[in-house]
C-alpha cells in the first residue's frame, strides 16, 4: 500500500506582475520527514511556503496536502497543518494565555477543551510564569515559543515553520532546535525554510536548495555534500622550498588534484584511511607541517557551489 504524500507540489509557479518569483517547482514531502527549503534571501522560499499554506494563490501548478488540493479543498487542507510564520503571528496586545485560548476556540475546540489544551501548551513551552503578562515584555525566544505553541493546538500532523530561528540568539536557537526534534520524535512531518545551512544540516532529512525561484537541487544533506566532494585535507608547510615536494607527495599518494596558495596546500581525501599514510610520508620526507585541518564539506560549500555568482 502506498502511503499518501504529506505534500505534493507540482509545477508550482508564481508571478508577481511580470516578475517570475517561483519558477516551476515540483517536489514531494513524505510523511514523518523533516523537509528543508534552503536558499538565500529573496530566493522564493517564503513564497513557496505561502502557496503551500493557502495564503497565496499559485499562478500555475498545484499543491496537495495529504491528498487534498489546497485550492479546491482549501478548508480541509487548512485543518491538516499548523503554520508558524516568519514574523511571530500572535497578538501583541493580549497575553499568552489569551492568545492560546482564542486560537484554540478558532480551531474549533470547545471552551473546556481549549482551557485544557492552553494549560498543557503553556507547560510544554515553559510559558506558565509569563502566561498572563503582556506580550510586549516577551523576549524573541518566548514569542517564538508561543507562536509555535499556537500552531500545535490541534496537534497537526504537518507543521510549517518559516525561518523558525531567524533573529534568535544561539542559546534560544538551540532550544528551538530541541523543540523541533521533539516534534519529529512524536511523528510530525515538518517543512521549514531557512537561510542557515547548519540549521538545515542539523534538522532536515532532505533539503531543497532554492535559488532565484528555481529548485536547484534536492537531496539529503549527505548527498548534497557528497556532490561537492569528499573531505579536504589542508596544511601549511614551514618552508617555501617544501611546497613542491609536498604537492608531489600528495598527488602520488592521493591520486587527486592538489591546490596550493603560498605555503598552504590542500587536497581532497576519498577515505579517512588515507590520512595516516599521508602524514607518515610527510614526516619521513622531513616536511614539517602546521595548521593541519581535515574538513568535512559543509552545506555552506554546497550552497556556494550551487548558487555561486548568481547572487
Amino acid at each position, binding site marked *: 500500500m502506498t502511503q499518501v504524500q504529506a505534500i505534493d507540489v507540482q509545477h508550482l509557479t508564481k508571478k508577481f506582475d511580470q516578475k517570475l518569483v517561483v519558477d516551476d517547482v515540483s517536489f514531494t514531502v513524505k510523511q514523518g520527514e523533516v523537509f528543508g527549503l534552503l536558499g538565500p534571501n529573496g530566493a522564493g522560499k517564503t513564497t513557496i511556503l505561502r502557496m503551500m499554506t493557502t495564503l497565496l494563490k499559485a499562478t500555475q501548478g498545484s499543491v496537495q496536502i495529504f491528498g487534498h488540493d489546497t485550492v479546491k479543498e482549501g*478548508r480541509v487542507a487548512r485543518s491538516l497543518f499548523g503554520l508558524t510564520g516568519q514574523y511571530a503571528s500572535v497578538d501583541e496586545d493580549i497575553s499568552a494565555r489569551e492568545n492560546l485560548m482564542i486560537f484554540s476556540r*478558532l480551531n474549533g475546540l470547545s471552551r473546556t477543551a481549549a482551557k485544557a489544551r492552553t494549560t498543557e501548551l503553556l507547560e510544554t513551552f515553559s510559558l506558565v510564569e509569563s502566561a498572563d503578562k503582556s506580550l510586549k515584555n516577551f523576549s524573541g525566544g518566548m514569542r517564538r515559543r508561543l507562536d509555535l505553541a*499556537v500552531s500545535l493546538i490541534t496537534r497537526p500532523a504537518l507543521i510549517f515553520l518559516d525561518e523558525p530561528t531567524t533573529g534568535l540568539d544561539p542559546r534560544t536557537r538551540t532550544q528551538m532546535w530541541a523543540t523541533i526534534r521533539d516534534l519529529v520524535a512524536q511523528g510530525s512531518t515538518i517543512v521549514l525554510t531557512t537561510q542557515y545551512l547548519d540549521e538545515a544540516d542539523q534538522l532536515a532529512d532532505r533539503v531543497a536548495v532554492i535559488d532565484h525561484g528555481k529548485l536547484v537541487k534536492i537531496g539529503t544533506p549527505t548527498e548534497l555534500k557528497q556532490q561537492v566532494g569528499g573531505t579536504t585535507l589542508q596544511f601549511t608547510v614551514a618552508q617555501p622550498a617544501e611546497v613542491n615536494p609536498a604537492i608531489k607527495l600528495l598527488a602520488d599518494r592521493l591520486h587527486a588534484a592538489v591546490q596550493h596558495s603560498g605555503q598552504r596546500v590542500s587536497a581532497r581525501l576519498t577515505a579517512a584511511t588515507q590520512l595516516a599514510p599521508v602524514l607518515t610520508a610527510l614526516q619521513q620526507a622531513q616536511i614539517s607541517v602546521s595548521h593541519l585541518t581535515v574538513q568535512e564539506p559543509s552545506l555552506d560549500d554546497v550552497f556556494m557551489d550551487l548558487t555561486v555568482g548568481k547572487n
Partner: protein
Amino acid sequence: MDIQTHRGNVVMNTATMAYRNLLKTVHNPDRFMDVLVQPILFMVMFGYLFGGAIAGGVQAYLPTIVPGILIQTMLSAASGSGSQIREDLDSGVFDRFKSLPMAHIAPLAGQLFADSLRLLIATITSLATGYVMGWRPAAGFGWVVISGLLAIFTGWALSWIFALLGLLAKNATTVQSFSMITMLVLSFVSNAFIPIKSLAKPMQVVANLNPVTHVITAIRQMLATGSWTSEAVLVLVFGTGIVLIFAPLTVWAYNRNN
C-alpha cells in the same frame, strides 16, 4: 489527530474574534481616547465658537450641533476600523487567521462588532457632553436612546466601507489620511454645523446629496418631534444596503490572496 474539533460555525468564529478585539481594546484603553476626546473637544469648541454666530446663542445652537457632532464622531470612529484592520494585516497575525479552517468573514465581522463598543462610547460621550452644555431634547430620553442606536447603526454600516478600504490600501497611513479627508468633507459639507440654506447653490446640491445630511436630519426630526420619520426609514434602508454590498466586497478583498 487526537484532539476533538468541530467545524466552527460563522457565528461562533465571529464571537471569538469579537472577543479578541475587545480584549485588545481592554488591554489598551488608549484606543478609546479618540472616541472620548474628539466629541467633547468638538462639541465644546464648535458650540461656544459658532453658537452665537449661527444660531444667536449656544443654547439655541445645541439642537443643531449635538446630532452633527454625534454623526461626525460616528464617521471618525468607523474609519478607525479600517486602519485597525490594515495594521492587523501588516502584523502577520491575519496570516494565521487565514490559515485556520474557519469562516473567512469572521476576522472582519469580529473586528467590526467589537468596534461597536467604540461607537457606543462615542455616542454616549457626544450626547452627555450636549446634556452638560444644557441640551434638553423635546422628545425625551426614550427618543435620545433611539437616535443613539440609529447613529450607532449608521457608524457600523459605514465601518464596512472603511474595512474594505483598509484591506485595499497599501498601509495604515494611507487609510488614516483618506479617512481623515472623507470625514472632514462629509461632515462639513452637510447640515451638521450650519443651515444648508446659508450655502452657495452648488454647495447646497452637494450637501443635500450627502448621506450625512440625511442621517442628521433624521435624528433631529426624531428628537424634535418624538416620532419615527421617513428620513429615519431611509437611513435604515440605506445603511442595510451598505452592509449588504460592502460585506461581500470586504470578504472578497480579504480572500484575494494577491
